[in-house]
């Protein structure tokens, strides 16, 4: 199978010159010269619609960034709206998700996820419990104006964790002067009977503005195209093909206010995102369970145990000040992520058979993580001559406490700081050079944790019982120096990007201090307090050609980790600390990864376009216990074919589109314990939308059919893959957006 992948990639690479070279030779006569500089366009377009400007801005942004970036706006999210932000973005090449249930998912960029992908919201690093495969991203997708995805190592700008990429979430643009308006979104989905709404109100006088949003979503159990699933061979019958107890609720409130001046801009952003959702009751974590089916099946909308509740609060101040050639940016932030996981007490290993009533921890509180983060970022962007020189300083303080009757990660506090300098040098209109250097410091202190129950030591007779110390007090300090160098070359229709760089990631508390049974995986996870900071070297290339009627973009990458941190399933069992479970030991190994994406777009007719995007990834461990194996959650090769028809109808139906996607995913046989081989599949999605205009009032309507054929398939990167749970069946989505303006008179 590996050979097939290789051949596939070789074929892609070899076929590209044929695509590109032929028109390059014969297509001279109708060549249009595109302006790739920041200078205003000379040939003024007849009508300057807002969208056109925006597209151009995105184009410029891409042409001046040495890293591979994808930019999408709220229109894209509206059109491809999935159960969660990351599901909506999964259409982009190189982007995948690790999903659990219908409303939670976390990003995977070119096969890496968890703490290797950094999410930036309102300028600051979003801090949740990124390490957990069953944890989603606490983001309200309705509140976003634009999402910028960086595929590739970007530690030099964002610090630790940006080793695989960055997802930069940008708010909606600041309202125009002397305006008052907003929008109402309503949303419905057939598969999990979701209904939701998001209401926005914003306004601005001369300099002061506000933007408020309220979002609510409520969904039931989601449905899969299967009647019985086998959790470790244990047969679980589903009622009406509904996945028991996967319902959820989400509420989000956002409020932004601030002052916009000529040279000074300052805004305060306040948000609270709350979600409560159930876990599939028959397999909490991944263990088979007998449940009270009558109780669970009584309603498809109730949330029983096991369940999770997460609340994420943010208070951020962003200030920008321009003086002479300087532009200063100051971001201050506080965020608190409070996560609780509830489950009935079931004794495992050496836990007492009955939960003692002397315990101060509630018997249903399986886990709790309380994280508080204070952040500070200062940047100065200086323009002089052909240079754009940015220097910056960032600092963060974290406090993490735990609770609950199971133990996985100790409480800890962490302080980190970094400084960087980045120079963008414009040699001429076509050619840009980039260089960056960054130094980081981080100190982590973990606190001692002792079991509340005694374990039995069987090795020495007579058998002795004792409460085990799971995690000792531990202090670690890390230093890191990283760099990056890149170039952009844009010549008429041709564009080239290249970047090489070193990135890093500080080990997280779980990697250093885990020493407990993960009762959901039948594993005993053991951290290694001696782990080094993880380093990565990455080379990125991007080659593009844009003609009138077609365009092509090829973005290969090559990545090497001298010390990738990896949770290695060993052959050992531990009957003392591990309560008889298989030992999963954190270790570091050399890892090689490469792959890339290919995008082709072709305009068949004025209103008909077709596109292809393909992605491929290969990863191999070059040393250690799992030498020769891949990394966990490696997405299989996939291709997305799209045909879009955007007819110009009449003034009442504007920006109408009919679009069909066919996604072909190959099988994944390149696996590592404890994964399973996943067969390939093909999926069809439909998207239809229009802007209905009555008088001067538009109504944006978007319809989607996801998994139109109700195909039964397994997603290799899904949390529930290990228990053979198929993905969601057919899902019809309707989303309506009503923007409005309230006439506003200057007083």
């Amino acid at each position, binding site marked *: 199978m590996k050979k097939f992948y290789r051949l596939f990639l070789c074929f892609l690479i070899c076929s590209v010159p044929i695509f590109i070279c032929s028109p*390059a030779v014969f297509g001279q006569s109708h060549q249009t010269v595109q302006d790739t500089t920041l200078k205003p366009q000379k040939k003024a377009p007849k009508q300057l619609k807002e969208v056109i400007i925006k597209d151009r801005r995105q184009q410029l942004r891409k042409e001046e960034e040495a890293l591979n970036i994808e930019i999408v706006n709220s229109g894209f999210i509206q059109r491809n709206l999935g159960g969660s932000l990351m599901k909506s973005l999964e259409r982009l090449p190189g982007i995948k998700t690790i999903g659990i249930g219908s409303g939670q998912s976390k990003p995977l960029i070119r096969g890496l996820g968890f703490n290797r992908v950094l999410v930036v919201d309102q300028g600051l690093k979003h801090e949740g419990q990124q390490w957990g495969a069953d944890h989603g991203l606490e983001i309200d997708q309705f509140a976003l104006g634009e999402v910028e995805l960086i595929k590739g190592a970007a530690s030099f700008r964002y610090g630790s964790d940006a080793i695989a990429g960055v997802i930069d979430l940008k708010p909606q643009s600041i309202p125009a002067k002397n305006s008052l308006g907003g929008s109402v979104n309503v949303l419905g989905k057939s598969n999990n009977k979701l209904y939701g709404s998001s209401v926005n109100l914003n306004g601005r006088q001369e300099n002061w503005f506000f933007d408020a949003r309220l979002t609510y979503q409520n969904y039931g159990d989601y449905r899969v195209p299967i009647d019985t699933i086998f959790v470790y061979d244990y047969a679980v019958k589903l009622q009406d093909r509904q996945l028991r107890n996967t319902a959820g609720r989400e509420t989000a409130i956002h409020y932004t206010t601030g002052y916009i001046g000529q040279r000074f801009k300052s805004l305060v952003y306040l948000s609270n995102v709350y979600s409560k959702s159930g876990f599939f009751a028959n397999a909490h974590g991944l263990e088979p369970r007998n449940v009270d089916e009558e109780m669970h099946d009584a309603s498809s909308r109730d949330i029983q145990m096991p369940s999770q509740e997460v609340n994420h609060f943010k208070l951020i101040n962003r200030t920008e000040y321009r003086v002479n050639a300087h532009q200063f940016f100051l971001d201050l932030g506080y965020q608190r992520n409070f996560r609780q996981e509830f489950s009935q007490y079931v004794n495992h290993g050496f836990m007492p058979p009955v939960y003692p009533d002397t315990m101060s921890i509630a018997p249903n509180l399986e886990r709790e993580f309380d994280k508080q983060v204070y952040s500070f970022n200062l940047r100065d962007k200086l323009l002089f001559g052909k240079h754009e020189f940015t220097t910056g300083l960032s600092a963060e303080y974290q406090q993490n406490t735990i609770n609950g009757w199971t133990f996985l990660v100790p409480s800890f506090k962490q302080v980190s700081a970094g400084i960087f300098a980045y120079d963008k040098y414009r040699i001429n209109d076509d050619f840009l050079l980039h260089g960056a250097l960054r130094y980081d410091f981080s100190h982590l202190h973990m606190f001692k944790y002792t079991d509340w129950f005694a374990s039995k030591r069987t090795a020495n007779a007579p058998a002795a019982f004792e409460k085990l110390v799971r995690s000792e007090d531990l202090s670690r300090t890390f230093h890191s120096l990283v760099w990056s160098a890149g170039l952009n070359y844009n010549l008429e229709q041709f564009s080239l990007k290249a970047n090489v760089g070193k990135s890093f990631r500080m080990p997280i508390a779980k990697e250093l201090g885990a020493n407990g049974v993960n009762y959901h995986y039948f594993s005993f996870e053991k951290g290694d307090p001696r782990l080094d900071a993880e380093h990565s070297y990455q080379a990125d290339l991007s080659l593009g050609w844009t003609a009138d009627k077609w365009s092509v973009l090829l973005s290969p990458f090559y990545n090497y980790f001298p010390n990738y941190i990896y949770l290695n399933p060993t052959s050992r069992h531990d009957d003392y600390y591990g309560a008889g479970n298989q030992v999963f030991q954190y270790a570091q190994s050399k890892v090689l990864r490469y792959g890339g994406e290919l995008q082709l777009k072709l305009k068949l007719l004025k209103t008909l376009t077709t596109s292809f995007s393909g992605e491929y990834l290969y990863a191999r461990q070059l040393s250690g216990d799992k030498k020769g194996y891949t990394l966990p959650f490696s997405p299989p090769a996939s291709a997305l074919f799209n045909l879009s028809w955007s007819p110009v109808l009449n003034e009442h139906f504007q920006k109408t589109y009919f679009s069909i996607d066919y996604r072909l995913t190959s099988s994944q046989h390149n696996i590592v314990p404890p994964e399973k081989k996943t067969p390939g599949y093909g999926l069809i999605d439909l998207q239809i939308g229009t802007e209905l205009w009555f008088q001067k009032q538009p109504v944006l309507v978007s319809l989607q059919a996801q998994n139109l054929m109700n195909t039964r398939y397994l997603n290799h990167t899904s949390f529930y893959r290990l228990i053979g749970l198929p993905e969601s069946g057919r899902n019809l989505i309707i989303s309506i957006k009503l923007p409005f303006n309230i006439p506003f008179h200057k007083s």
Partner: protein
Amino acid sequence: MRINVKKLNLLVGGLFLAAALSNCSKDKAEPIDTTYPEINTDSPTAFPKQCGVLKRGEKFSFKALLSDNKELGSVSVDIHHNFDHHTHSTELQECDMAPVKQAVKPFLLIKNIAIPAGLKSYELNTEIDVPADIDPGDYHFMIRLTDKEGWQTIKGLSIKIN
């Protein structure tokens, strides 16, 4: 035409670089092992079996055939009560269960059993004591077997202790 050649050179050069980076050459790595080890309790001598019965105050011999395509790792046995009817049974056959009850002094055994190194197949035969003073009732008998690569197979049997 000059620009065109220049562009073409860039493009072809870039593609060669991409091809070199992507390492299209032949695969040198030997194939990885992706086969799970097997726990066989089907043979007539294997004990216990699904819905099997153990006796308090007596010894029994835990017998199973363990096998792997390359090399076995280690095996662990875990006997814990199932008075609350949570389930870890991996077998299709269902057993008659006693009514749900509160545990007082349930039997708990967690034990590693060594497998000699380098074996593809191993006849497990080990004696286990069942104390006389434990709660009788429904129990789980879980066998966890790994191979050297770290693949794990779990077999969960529902048993009774009388």
